[in-house]
């Protein structure tokens, strides 16, 4: 049974590969945590800076707070006690601002679910649009339609996301006057639907609120994907085996979709893994403008208040996502490309 043996060999290889990569992540996360901790500590001021500006607050109270939060201990001691709590107790500390455990502060309500939903849906739509457009662009190389597509792609890339979001909201409110039809803008759904159960009306409402999000965040990454798809496909189409396929009499459609695209798409699969962390961590300002309840928002407000424990945990969370994204990318590539082995 040679095929089965090969199959199990590949599966076992995949497993050890995943385990090995996961183990590599741990020292990496440790180094990230140390660098992040250093950066947070050398930022001017600390959590109590704002309190110092309050004319009512006395020196004694400030000193009490310093001791309460352990801000006067030496740097390495603070880092070590933070690390010890995580490794021994799984305790990421508590937020100075909300007095709740850090994970609750970061993931309050449904923030984690919304973050993942927004990231994944944007990712899927991005690819759903970018790949066909890239293929079209490649097969109509240098025609006017190719230039138009490229132009809009770069437009989406160059406009800053938060500005694009504001302009889009402005267009909806001022030009289209959606308020007159009872439609609201920003957020992920109308306020009243948060406490209501699921219904078709709710889903439609979410779609209404989400499409500006998909347009703003999606288009910024799409240009790169379109150009990449286009470039790869053009390269693939110029290879000898494509010529052979054409010579064999296969239709252009079969040549392009069945043979060329399948090979050209490999690099995009890799990028898929890397796009995920980008979407999670990179859209904070857009999330602020569009009022999206994401983890990035909690992280950002913790950063503004120098709420150290939350900032550290947030950084670790994003780093973990990045590493997972990398792992996913490598895994997907190996799965799609039979030439790659795991050792």
């Amino acid at each position, binding site marked *: 049974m040679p095929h089965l043996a090969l199959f199990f060999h590949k599966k076992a290889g995949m497993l050890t590969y995943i385990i090995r990569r996961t183990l590599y992540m741990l020292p990496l996360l440790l180094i990230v945590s140390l660098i992040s901790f250093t950066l947070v500590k050398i930022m001017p*001021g600390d959590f109590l800076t704002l309190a110092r500006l309050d004319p009512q607050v006395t020196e004694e109270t400030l000193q009490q707070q310093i001791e309460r939060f352990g801000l006067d201990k030496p740097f390495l001691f603070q880092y070590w006690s933070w690390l010890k709590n995580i490794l021994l107790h799984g305790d990421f500390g508590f937020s100075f*601002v909300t*007095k709740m455990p850090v994970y609750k502060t970061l993931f309050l309500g449904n923030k984690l679910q919304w973050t993942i939903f927004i990231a994944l849906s944007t990712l899927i739509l991005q690819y759903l649009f970018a790949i066909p457009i890239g293929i079209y662009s490649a097969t109509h190389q240098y025609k006017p339609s190719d230039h138009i597509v490229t132009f809009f792609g770069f437009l989406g890339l160059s406009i800053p996301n938060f500005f694009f979001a504001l302009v889009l909201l402005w267009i909806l409110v001022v030009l289209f006057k959606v*308020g007159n039809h009872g439609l609201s*803008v920003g957020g992920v759904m109308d306020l009243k639907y*948060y406490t209501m159960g699921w219904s078709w009306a709710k889903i439609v409402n979410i779609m209404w609120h989400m499409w500006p999000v998909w347009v703003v965040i999606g288009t910024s990454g799409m240009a790169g994907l379109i150009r990449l798809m286009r470039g790869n496909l053009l390269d693939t189409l110029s290879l000898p085996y494509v010529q052979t396929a054409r010579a064999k009499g296969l239709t252009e459609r079969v040549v392009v979709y069945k043979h060329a695209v399948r090979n050209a798409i490999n690099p995009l699969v890799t990028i898929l893994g890397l796009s995920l962390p980008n979407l999670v961590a990179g859209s904070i300002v857009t999330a602020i403008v569009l009022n999206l309840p994401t983890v990035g928002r909690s992280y950002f407000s913790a950063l503004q208040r120098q709420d150290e424990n939350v900032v550290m945990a947030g950084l670790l969370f994003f780093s973990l996502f990045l590493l997972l994204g990398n792992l996913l990318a490598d895994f997907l590539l190996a799965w799609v490309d039979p030439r790659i082995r795991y050792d």
Partner: protein
Amino acid sequence: MKNALILAGLLVFTSLAVFGQGYLEQPADALVIPIGVAGTVYEDMELGVRGGTITIANIEDPKGWNNHTAHETSTTWFTGRMHRGLVNLDHISGALVPDLAKSWEISEDSLVITFHLREGLMWSDGEPITADDVVFTYNDVILNEDVDTNARDGQLLPDDTYPVCEKVDTYTVTFTMSVIFRPALNSLSFNIMPKHALAQYVHKLNPEVPAGTFNETWTLDTPLDELVGNGPWIVSDYQPNVSVTMTRNPYYYAYDPAGTQLPYYDTIISAIVTNQDVSMLKFRNGETDVYGLRAEDIAILNSEAPAKGFSILITSDPGYGTTWFLINQDVGLAEGTDAEKRELYRNVKFREAMAHCIDKDTMINNVLNGLGGPQWSPVSVPSPFYAGRDYYGGPITENNAIIFEYDPAKAAGILDDLGVVDADGDGWRDLPSGAPLNLSIETNDNTTRSASCLILTDDWQSIGLNVTFQIVDFNTLVNNLFGSAGDLIYLGLTGGDEPNGGSNVYRSCGSLHAYRYSACDDPDDIDARVDELLALGANTFDLDAAFDYYTEYQQLLAAQLGYVYTVVQSFQYAYYDYVGNAFKASPTSTPGGNNGLLTELCFDKRLL
């Protein structure tokens, strides 16, 4: 619209189920707010009807539901509406008025204040409000060292002791002070917390919980039906980063003269909108009913107002707070350098020359779009103690103002007399000895402050002073402020009605006496007199006598030019016309302020 009504109805129903039915009839001791009553500050307001929902926008999420452990206004905006104290600031006039206490007496020796609570009132869960709650809040929460609260410092008396709070009977409480301290009346407006709901979390009363448990009580993840208050509203729903919903407390004890229980609105929905531009778009889209606008929004909103049915309230009333720059009179002291420059900065004539270059009119017109006023005093303009009045709480006349008019020529003349002239012909004035004089002013990246600094730099440079302007990160700026590390710093501070609230800023040894920390060891005549006046002003309950002390205090500080005041923004506001009584919004009673005019006395005109 229909859905909003359904939701409102649902919330009212749930709140009734959770909270109780409310008073069967108006309590004998109810607080009656004289809406529409002639001869009061409320006379031009209308009586309203109950019902409806008002939607507003807030910039930040609350950080918890615990009023006394909160350190941010984003939290106290909500918790301050869930609780009330013995006294409060009047919604319109800002004067101290009875709230939970129906009356109080001050003893002969002015050391004991006796409060008489209203009788027969209940918490939002139906439990009675008594003196036990007052004593619990004061002794076991505010004065409790385990509790991480800002409120404790506000209770400190000048001799570093605290007032002693004692229960006399079910509805009577006394506060005994060791020195006569008028501002105590202000600080006794602290919000009262329910003993029956919270005592279990205070280690002092319940040794089974560890010390400090109260600091982690009523955090954001607490089930909302556990929150109990005596204020007009109770939080009933919270969606992180999205909205906070508050419902009327059925046991709130304020009524209007027609016997209608307040507040008029059934619910407030506070949408969390972090970006100001989006907030304005939501207002224009009809999603929010009111909007605290910026000067740059006026042109756009003005053109839309008639068509969309909203009004813009523009006043020349400045708000609370001060904006200033300081000239660091301790420059180089710690390092042992810059002795001549330091001597120059300490010369009041030099500071006067700097003050004569402040073009307040241009700042108001260009930076604040005409919506602001000049500032000369450390006390906020809305305060009844502001020296721009002729008597306590009187109208503003500015008869006592100490003003340094914008007169660059005069400034140049003063500098010439001081010997600060261009000795080396490079176009910039130098120190009297001939050494170069370099000044630098810094602020953070706040557009209003930066623009003001540019105007100042321009004017100083035009009379030959070599001033450079730098924008630094806020935390760095604050560090420079406290470390006496800056040269000229442009910043601002919050303010209130009570001049004694600024004692940490102006006392010679105050922690915010940033223009000259060395005054603590080496006070000049003005520093010494200011210390005396602060003590005298606090040491009497005679408001007119206090007013006189504080007038001298403000004039001395204005002449001393430690913090040099510039301009302050005036108050403007936008609201849809169906929001009744919204036209009375003011700096004392904004939706963002603690008085909550909008949220207690406003109503939906469409329900009439």
